[in-house]
């Protein structure tokens, strides 16, 4: 309906002011949020409307020229997330009660809940750390006292000796490094006070309670190791590297092998780190950590919150939601660890996973038991995670599909672009369900009204491609008595054009370098617990090049993420020293 000129300017408007220019100008963003590089034609370069792509595709600059020296970027102290806390106390104390589930949810930023800047501690969380520490320590002393004491018998060897042994042997597991002398002294003072006022076991329990609330347990505190000739940058010290590796790849504390490597000078070089990373990927904990990433990136953790309108979907059983989540997680798990391992398969696989109940929901003949098994659906119907019911149900309204949300998901999660929320003063109620009109026709106003078209031309035509999947994620051939029209169009991206259905969309996506770059960007955010900054462009370029060279292998990308300056080095901000 509109020529490219108008579309381009709408996109430029997205970059500088949002898609619409608000009346009064009071909401106009500063010029700083503008497009990445001045003078480039957004339509030709497919410039990221977010403006965050910075220098990585500006053509005019040679990014290599700026990539000299060590540029780790910001290196904030990182607090454990709830999942990391639960995994850590499981691996440290054998506790499987998952106490972190009761903590307040993390604040989210850029789609992930582990952004260091947002992980602050409010009084309520400090209280819950206290409660959890007390309960964990009580259970540990009750059930595992001899193990905590490392076999030391206080009756024969003396209470003081055994307390000291506990602090020097168990303390390093809690702090993930050896303790400084003054730290041991302070902990033994807690023991002695507990012993004086109460008894030996209380003393041990209070020491453990103290350690479990220490910043050296709850946070990854790093000071780095000095490098000759550098004042602003330090190497990440071996024990710190062990924790970086374990929390990135396992979402938990380091194991004995990592600690041993750190202690013996075998966790220093990039090769050392890569070798450990490869070893760690073989552990089931790596699957958990990678699942955690996808739960957040692909909104799988929202599937079970979905609520549907029973009038519209009378046969929908909410119990199926948990199965839809399992389907998505099983699929990702299979592709990355047991299958091809690459991004293209995640986007294009003609198969998925179902058990008997889920097959019944989908109306597919196949699985007969509760166990999930691989089901071939064929390349005309299935396209990786993009066509799975859980995602489709999340990206839908209670009583209808939502081309807007589906298009927005592709733009934001898969292309790393940003679509601003609707502006002031517009009616954002989706068109009411009309049994005589297909969704596409009810959404016509978004393209007819130029005020809406600015943003919606970026979303709706992409989302229409998903119309074969109804609001609960089931395949449909017709809507309102008419055959489904699942043709769509991508504009303002590096790969543009029309497509038919999700498999057609996926073919365009896998051809797009933007999808490749976005995948590395999302993993960057998750791995490093922070948003990317301009100074990270060299690292993002490196990651992108390696990812492309590996055939877009996700396991290889995980190893590559441990090899960057952002992982191996830190920006020196404090005065502290590492041991």
């Amino acid at each position, binding site marked *: 309906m509109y020529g490219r000129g108008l579309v381009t300017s709408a996109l430029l408007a997205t970059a500088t002011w949002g898609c619409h220019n608000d009346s009064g100008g009071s909401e106009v963003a500063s010029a700083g949020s503008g497009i990445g590089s001045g003078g480039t034609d957004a339509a030709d370069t497919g410039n990221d409307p977010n403006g965050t792509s910075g220098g990585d595709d500006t053509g005019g600059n040679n990014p290599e020229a700026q990539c000299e020296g060590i540029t780790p970027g910001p290196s904030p*102290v990182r607090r454990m997330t709830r999942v990391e806390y639960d995994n850590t106390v499981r691996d440290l104390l054998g506790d499987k009660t998952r106490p972190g589930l009761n903590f307040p949810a993390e604040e989210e930023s850029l789609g992930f809940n582990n952004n260091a800047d947002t992980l602050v501690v409010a009084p*309520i969380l*400090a209280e819950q750390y206290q409660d959890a520490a007390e309960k964990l320590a009580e259970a540990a002393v009750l059930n595992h006292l001899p193990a905590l004491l490392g076999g030391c018998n206080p009756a024969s060897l003396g209470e003081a000796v055994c307390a000291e042994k506990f602090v020097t042997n168990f303390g390093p597991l809690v702090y993930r490094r050896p303790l400084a002398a003054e730290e041991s002294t302070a902990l033994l003072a807690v023991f002695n006070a507990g012993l004086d006022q109460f008894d030996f076991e209380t003393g041990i329990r209070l020491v453990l309670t103290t350690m479990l609330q220490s910043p*050296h347990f709850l946070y990854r505190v790093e000071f780095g190791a000095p490098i000759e000739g550098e004042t602003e940058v330090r190497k990440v010290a071996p024990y710190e590297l062990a924790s970086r590796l374990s929390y990135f790849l396992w979402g938990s504390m380091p194991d004995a092998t990592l600690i041993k490597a750190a202690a013996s000078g075998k966790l220093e070089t990039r090769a050392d780190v890569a070798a450990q990373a490869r070893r760690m990927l073989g552990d089931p904990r790596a699957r958990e950590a990678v699942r955690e990433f996808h739960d957040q990136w692909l909104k799988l953790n929202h599937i079970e919150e979905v*609520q549907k309108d029973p009038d519209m979907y009378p046969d929908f059983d909410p119990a199926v939601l948990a199965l839809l989540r399992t389907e998505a997680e099983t699929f990702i798990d299979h592709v990355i660890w047991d299958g091809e391992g690459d991004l293209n398969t995640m986007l294009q696989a003609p198969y998925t996973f179902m058990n008997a109940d889920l097959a019944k929901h989908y109306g597919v003949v196949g699985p007969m038991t509760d166990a999930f098994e691989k089901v071939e659906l064929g390349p005309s119907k299935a396209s990786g995670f993009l066509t799975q019911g859980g995602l489709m149900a999340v990206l839908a309204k209670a009583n209808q599909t939502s081309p807007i949300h589906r298009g927005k998901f592709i733009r934001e999660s898969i292309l790393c672009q940003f679509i601003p*929320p609707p502006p002031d003063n517009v009616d954002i109620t989706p068109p009411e369900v009309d049994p005589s009109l297909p969704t596409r026709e009810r959404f016509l106003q978004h393209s007819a009204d130029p005020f809406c078209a600015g943003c919606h031309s970026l979303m709706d035509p992409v989302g229409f491609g998903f119309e074969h999947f109804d609001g609960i994620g089931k395949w449909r051939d017709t809507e309102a008595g008419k055959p489904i029209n699942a043709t769509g169009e991508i504009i303002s991206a590096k790969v543009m054009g029309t497509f038919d259905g999700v498999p057609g969309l996926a073919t365009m996506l896998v051809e797009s370098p933007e999808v490749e770059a976005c995948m590395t960007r999302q993993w960057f955010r998750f791995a490093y617990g922070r948003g990317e900054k301009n100074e990270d462009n060299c690292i993002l370029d490196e990651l992108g090049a390696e990812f492309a060279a590996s055939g877009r292998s996700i396991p290889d990308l995980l190893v590559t993420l441990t090899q960057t300056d952002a992982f191996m080095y830190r920006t020196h901000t404090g005065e502290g020293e590492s041991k």
Partner: protein
Amino acid sequence: MKKSTLSRRSVLRGVGGACIALPLLEIMGGWDGPASLPKRFVVFWTPNGTILKDWRPTGTEKKYTMGPILKPLEPFKSDVIVLDGVDELSAYDGPGDAHQKATGQGLTATALQEGDFKGAGGNSAGWGNGISVDQAIANAVGAATQFSSLEFGVNVYGANVGSRISYRGPAQPIPPENDPVAGFNRLFEGFASDPEAAKRRVAERKLVLDAVGADYQKLLPKVGAADRIKLEAHLDAVRDIEMRLGSGGTMGGACVKPELGPVPKPTEIVNTPAIGKLQMDLLAMALACDLTRVASIMWNNSATAKPFPWLNIPEGHHELAHRGDDDADAQAKITKINTWYCEQFAYLVEKLKSMPEGNGSVLDNTLLIWVNEHQKGNDHDRDQIPYVVAGRAGGAVKAGRWMQVPGKVSHNDLWVGCMNAMGLPDKTFGDPTYCKGALNLG
């Protein structure tokens, strides 16, 4: 020990809020002291604006008729001020879109931080950049109770600037507790338990928290500035817990340990009315038992898309709020939603009024204020925010009137007025450029 903690807090206030730090004695001097009945401050927050013509009373200051939205408050007319005409002036400035600014500045009254929370119109923002008024008051009146303040939520989802109203200081949002079971356990689990066991627990906790606090203290000078802010906030929280060790609630009067019956799932939309009622019951009992003197209850969050099935409104609240003034159906539904919120507010008013205290009720010693995110949803108008005050704050608030505030009066000055009513001597709050003098509620 109490004294030193308070002085530390007064310093923090200076860092956290835009307003000037006051000497300790001045803060404490304004407080009536524990001998008199406690005064409380409570915020009741709802999103997405109202319909002013249905909200505004008709008549005169003393002789007026409630508009349809405020009808549920008719029985409590002598206990409320319909506060009409205060503007969120600061919430037109700084980073963020209209929803982010109105929510993050509602109780902080100062521009938001820059940050990565994406908003409408290409805007983005970070967290609120100052202490919120409830926390400023908690710093002055919350030292004597087990909890400095309590934050209740009803289906507050997401974790960003649009889902937080309370701040300990810049970029220190306080998450509300959405689950009545967790809230009940926190408030009443150890309530009125075996005194010997309680004594031992206090002794153990003191021992541990002393060491934990020292651990954070030792680390602070070794880390960079940004990390230090985070760890300092953590240390502050640890010290706060330590300071309150052994301060339990006060039994007697209206205070009884409540029974928690079956609790429906807090995240199911249809359970909103039931969860809201349970949260208000807990809040009221926490005040009556003097477990805290400062509280807030946040209903949903900014720009919430949640529908109201129990009112037969299938559309999302935010979507409705965006429709034009001439859409009679949407206007009627927004009025219905706000009327329902008013019923909830009236329930809390009634509850506090039913709890005897001294010669009056808990409500008489409380300043309860209903804050709406916006005045109007479709253009995000932040002038003439539809505030309703209930209670008398121990006599400092003159209730029973429709208080029309002419001209431009900032909500900064409203918060200074509330702080004064609570016994704080402050003259400014939030961004002082919006402060022209307290709005006197007396």
